[in-house]
């Protein structure tokens, strides 16, 4: 007979409506036997009682419905963002809160490279917080004049480069191409945007972020997950080339791998037929820790990059409307074919015109081929209004809202991109709930840090970085936020029969917390410490934070 383990805790919040709280949970073969009181455990005797977590809170392992495994690998490159961040090993990367601090961080990273020509890449730069000050090539030249330097902005649309790179690329005062920004004297500043300028930069150095995922990144991604209590996470824009598919298998079968991975095929990387065939073939790789079936569609761009597709009246500051990722008709065809093939679509829509287009496409697909319980999910869906949420409810479409945006870019959305009215209803979890839409909330890591308790804090408080509350009517309760990062997310992934709550038969996946998100004051949810996770019944301690 296999071993039975019982974990005790100060409180176990089960998310199981028929037994919401417990003090003990019994686990066998990596699955939950039952949760209840110590007496209730007698039915499973003999068992081994573990009191290691007797003073802690157990909740269902968090489910991150929208993140990218690149979160594991991106730490090979220095981070130069505004706020402190911790890498999977627990090392703190100090936020660079001035241009000088960014240069200092780059200089330190430069010192770690051996030869004088290796390109230096950095990521996470966000000058939006520095007022009018912009970074220029001369500042980067103080870091190095011998190696090309590329600093990626966190919005994904801009790069800063040094003079060495511009020399290699032949970018001079005579370069008159849209996207090569210049100063008052007509000299290029080293700030590059748009495809052509990026192409010219990457032609010199190669694009280190190009290509599929590798096993080491997936291993570190799982470490990152443990640190924030996540036990199931997507890799929501995946290349299904042979190497990547093999890496998913290898990582998921690595002993002690603490994550259930859900890669989503990037549907535009191949023809529709090939994509469907690839997604179906990948199902054969599925195991307890690898769950294929998701497919990702990109509809538009980003709101802060002004590439999201907005309905009238468009961008608050009058910028032209954004970009479709593919012809609207092609997107519709793609949705229909993947829907007919029985696959599960996760559809990036940022602007409200994009979410409308996809609701039209999903409605057409449902009429052409009715499929009960498809659970196609709109991802981000930041600008949807109540009428769109009503359509989602009718069509059985789920939504995964980008709650972290409220904190990180909410101020900019109110002032620049959407204006106050639409910023107040962005990522409208309150409306989703009122209209009966199954919803979740997410980080989109590495765009923002993966930390479901922080994401829950955002949805509960809707507070921007400057402390403004955006649309208090859209706030949700701590209970509902906890549901959104566990069972709600599991539902959008069609995994709610396996994860998301603590009840018999499900995987024994728990987040181990120092405090209860339902007991602390709502504004303290983000400050709750995460001890780590229990995944398939095995405890994994979060990395100790250093630096």
């Amino acid at each position: 007979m296999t071993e039975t383990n019982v974990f005790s805790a100060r409180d176990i919040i089960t998310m199981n409506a028929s037994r919401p709280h417990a003090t003990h949970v019994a686990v066998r073969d990596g699955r939950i036997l039952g949760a209840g009181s110590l007496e209730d455990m007698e039915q499973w005797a003999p068992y081994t009682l573990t009191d290691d977590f007797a003073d802690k809170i157990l909740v269902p392992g968090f489910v991150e419905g929208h993140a990218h495994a690149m979160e594991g690998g991106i730490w090979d490159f220095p981070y130069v963002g505004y706020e402190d961040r911790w890498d999977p090993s627990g090392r703190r990367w100090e936020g660079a809160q001035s241009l000088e601090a960014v240069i200092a961080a780059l200089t330190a990273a430069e010192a770690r490279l051996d030869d004088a020509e290796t390109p230096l890449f950095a990521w996470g730069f966000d000058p939006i917080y520095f007022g009018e000050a912009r970074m220029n090539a001369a500042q980067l030249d103080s870091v190095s004049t011998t190696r090309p330097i590329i600093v990626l902005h966190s919005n994904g649309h801009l790069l800063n480069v040094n003079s060495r790179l511009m020399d290699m690329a032949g970018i001079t005062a005579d370069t008159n191409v849209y996207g090569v920004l210049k100063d008052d004297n007509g000299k290029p500043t080293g700030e590059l945007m748009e495809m052509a300028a990026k192409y010219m930069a990457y032609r010199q150095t190669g694009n280190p972020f190009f290509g599929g995922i590798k096993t080491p990144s997936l291993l570190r991604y799982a470490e990152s997950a443990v640190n924030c209590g996540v036990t199931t996470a997507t890799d929501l824009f995946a290349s299904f080339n042979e190497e990547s598919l093999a890496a998913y298998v290898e990582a998921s079968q690595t002993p002690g791998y603490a994550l259930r991975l859900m890669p989503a095929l990037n549907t535009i990387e191949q023809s529709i037929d090939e994509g469907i065939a690839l997604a179906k073939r990948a199902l054969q790789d599925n195991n307890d820790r690898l769950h294929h079936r998701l497919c990702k569609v990109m509809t538009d761009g980003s709101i802060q990059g002004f590439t999201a597709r907005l309905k009238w009246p468009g961008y608050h500051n009058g910028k032209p409307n954004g970009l479709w990722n593919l012809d609207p008709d092609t997107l519709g065809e793609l949705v229909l074919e993947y829907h007919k093939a029985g696959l599960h679509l996760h559809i990036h829509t940022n602007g409200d015109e994009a979410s409308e287009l996809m609701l039209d496409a999903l409605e057409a697909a449902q009429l052409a081929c009715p499929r009960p319980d498809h659970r196609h999910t709109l991802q981000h869906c930041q600008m949807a209004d109540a009428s769109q949420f009503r359509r989602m409810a009718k069509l059985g479409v789920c939504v995964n809202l980008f709650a972290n945006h409220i904190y990180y870019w909410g101020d900019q959305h109110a002032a620049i991109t959407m204006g106050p009215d639409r910023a107040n209803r962005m990522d409208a979890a309150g409306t989703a709930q009122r209209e009966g839409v199954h919803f979740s909330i997410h980080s989109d890591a590495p765009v923002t840090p993966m930390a479901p308790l922080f994401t829950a804090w955002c949805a509960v408080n809707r507070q921007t970085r400057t402390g403004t509350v955006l649309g208090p009517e859209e706030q949700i309760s701590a209970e509902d936020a906890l549901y959104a990062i566990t069972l709600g997310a599991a539902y959008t992934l069609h995994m709610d029969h396996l994860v998301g709550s603590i009840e018999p038969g499900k995987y024994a996946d728990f987040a181990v917390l120092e405090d209860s998100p339902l007991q602390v004051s709502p504004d303290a949810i983000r400050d709750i410490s995460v001890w780590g996770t229990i995944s398939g019944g095995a405890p994994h301690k979060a990395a100790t934070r250093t630096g």
Partner: protein
Amino acid sequence: MNDAPVDFTVIGGFLGSGKTSLVNRLLAASGSTRFAVLVNDFGALNIDEALIRHQDGRIMQLANGCICCSLAGGLVDTMVELMRYRHLIDHILIEASGVSYPSRIMDFARIDPDLRPGLTLVLVDAAHLQDHSTDTRLAETITAQMESADMFVLTKTDIASADMAAWSRDWVATRAPDAPIIEGRPDDASLVALITGPAPDATSAATHHHHPADHTGHHAHADPDRALHTHFVSRAMTASRPVDEDGFADFANRFSKHLLRGKGTLHFHRRSAIWQQAGRLVHLEDATLDADTASQIVMISADDLSEAAAALRALGFQDVANVPAR
């Protein structure tokens, strides 16, 4: 190793306007030009398996020297990858998705000295333009296409009603009054010839001009030059005295609507130059030319060149037939 810049052409137009047919035709009739075509959907190209010499991920090498590339990995990374094979390529042709901005794509050639900016050709589906032009989801894209195309091809005129075709032609002409609009099927040899070049040189045009009877026996479309002269009107002119540069630049802009192709060697007062034109795309590049030769040009048009010729006569040009023998 070939260090000459690689020609760069962008084909735009909405879904269904015939871009894929044009690319297919082009691959079949590439002649000696080694094309690299970047397309959105590999599968839509009907490439004979037997012609595929080598396939490496998203890059496919064909037996005729051409390369096909899928744009699925994104234009930036695909172009970075493709330019590693630069020595194998004479001409890059991008099939722009219906919602991309052609001028943003042509910027690749404007920023990279290893590329030579060429034609931006936009295909317009005459049967569906009315729908597209009233679709708010496509409004910005269609405006961008009207602004950035050097010339337009009106396709599906055989399917569209006569009224609809006329409406479409008018609609484009109103928004791009100085760009040529050709009607044709996307697999016409003449369209392929417009892209492949080689740009007609003055001598061959003069020959065609003088011996129209020659054409009757030469409808083989393998020779793009011949296809051009067969389907369009051409005219060659020369000027024995230096040409006024401003006057010529003015001519090039004024008649852009009629000039599908223009090429020539020109002696201005201050410099000599090679002239190349394709609709709204005008190149006048410095060149060292034999001072004893006359300025020579040839023009190809889908309609009428008599007004253009008159304007050139005012600048001192004469029809080739009238050039006194040397």
